[in-house]
């Protein structure tokens, strides 16, 4: 085979691989959206109906409990995690820490970033054992927050890093304190920070392994922060393997909601990242 035939072959292979990846994606999203939409259209009430007493056996009622659980676990977790992540990123970027400490922290952040979510789940579970508490919404929030923290920190750190140094210099030049300067840096990188928070939110809302042991896999509406709860991914996981067709159908309906939510979040973060690119010097050029 001569050089040019080889070059052509690799071109075909690269295009073929891409076509494969794209078609798999279209297939998975297509199946989920199509089936989910059909089920939601025939029986839209399952979204707003709480589960009946025999939900896992006879599919009584709907899965409002999982929707409520997802919202009340992921939103507070995102707020907690965002606060910590932005603060950590500011700490690493601004003049609070020595370079060596920053490197050390970055190393640990990398390890946390690569840690499987199930480990966070088991960790929070050990805390539950140690405190003698019950699995509940609150522990679900804690687990998801820990899971999101390294993800959001990474994105935020990147965003702050690409903020121009001139902002910092100009701010210090006016006699600002570090805190006031940090505020300016965050503001100048805000779209990127928000995009990072949204990505963290999207990851949090889709993850099951962290909440599996911590939120309680309840089949009732959560009554309070100390009550057992469940989330959409767990509902999908449990319903998917059920012999009851109606429960499987509800899993597709739940998947539909989850995919739509994730797509919407990506869309928002893309828009923000685009805006971010316009402000950041030398940022992503399309």
């Amino acid at each position, binding site marked *: 085979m001569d*050089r040019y035939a080889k070059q052509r072959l690799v071109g075909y292979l690269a295009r073929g691989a891409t076509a494969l990846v794209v078609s798999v994606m279209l297939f998975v999203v297509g199946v989920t959206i199509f089936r989910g939409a059909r089920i939601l259209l025939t029986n839209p009430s399952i979204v707003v109906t709480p589960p009946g007493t025999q939900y896992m056996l006879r599919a009584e009622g709907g899965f409002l409990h999982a929707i409520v659980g997802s919202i009340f676990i992921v939103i507070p977790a995102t707020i907690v995690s965002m606060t910590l992540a932005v603060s950590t990123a500011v700490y690493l970027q601004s003049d609070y820490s020595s370079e060596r400490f920053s490197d050390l922290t970055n190393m640990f952040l990398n390890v946390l970033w690569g840690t499987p979510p199930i480990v966070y789940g088991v960790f929070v579970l050990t805390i539950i054992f140690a405190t003698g508490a019950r699995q509940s919404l609150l522990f679900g929030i804690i687990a998801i927050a820990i899971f999101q923290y390294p993800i959001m920190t990474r994105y935020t750190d990147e965003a702050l890093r*690409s903020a121009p140094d001139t902002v910092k210099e100009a701010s210090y030049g006016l006699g600002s304190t570090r805190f006031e300067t940090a505020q300016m840096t965050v503001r100048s990188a805000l779209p990127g920070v928000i995009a990072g928070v949204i990505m963290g939110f999207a990851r949090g809302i889709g993850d099951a392994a962290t909440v599996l042991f911590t939120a309680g896999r309840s089949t009732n509406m959560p009554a309070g922060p100390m009550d057992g709860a469940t989330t959409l991914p767990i509902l999908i996981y449990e319903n998917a393997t059920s012999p009851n067709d109606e429960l499987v159908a509800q899993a597709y309906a739940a998947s539909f909601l989850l995919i739509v939510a994730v797509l919407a979040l990506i869309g928002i973060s893309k828009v923000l990242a685009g805006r971010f690119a316009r402000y950041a010097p030398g*940022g992503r050029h399309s």
Partner: protein
Amino acid sequence: MTSNVALTTDELSVTYTGNEDVKALNSVSLEFPSNQLTAIIGPSGCGKSTLLKSLNRLHEIQPNVEIEGDVSLGDQPIYNTDEPAPEIRRRIGYVPQTPTALPLSIYENVAYGVKIHGDYEDSAELDEIVESYLRKVNLWDEVKDRLDTPGAELSTGQIQRLCLARSLAVEPEVLLCDEVTSALDPISAEQVEETLKSLKEEYTIIMVTHSMDQARRLADDVVFLYLGELVEANDARTFFENPQAERTKEFISGHGASTYLEESSDESDSEVQPDEQADGSRDRPAAVEQ
């Protein structure tokens, strides 16, 4: 020999088709004599790099570029031909502005092109080729003891000479050099200039420069471009001492022999934009980061 023409452009136009079409090079017809060093000068954004890259079809790696006209090597056309671009680029070598070591050892850097084209019998011959070209660029004595270390560990001046050796090793007929000394400190630049001077006996060298001094020191012929148009092409003596075109006179006197054209040219000129973008995108450090 010296009167022969190595490379000819025939009404060559290059257009960047982005949101709006911008003509970076407008119908340029030129003859580059063989075994001479031709310097291409002009204010930044005048299409120097565009012209250089279109001579061996290198701009083809950028999206949104359209070419009209043709370039011929001897009497063989470069664009209207079935010959694949790599074969053409082998005969017309290119040395980029930034000293660039490939992620290979010093030895492999020089051997890279030779290996690709399979121009050697055995490893002993390859060794010979590598040594002779490293000698040709006056680098052999500096690196002969560490041929296995990464090329990037050399100093920038050494890397630029390594680039020359790598380009020469495939035995091109023409060598295109894009401001090869602009990224170097004065001493390294002088070494590279010396190397170029010694090479022009054997090769046809076409070189973009923004330093008038350098053009005076090295060039046999000078091509002056302004906003994508050819203003004047002449042998160096005539060009500097008795310029024909009005604009050339202005340019030479207005900028003085020792000033750098880059600095005094009007960067905010809107017509400068397209080439600036094409060239500038890879120079932005922030985009490269992450």
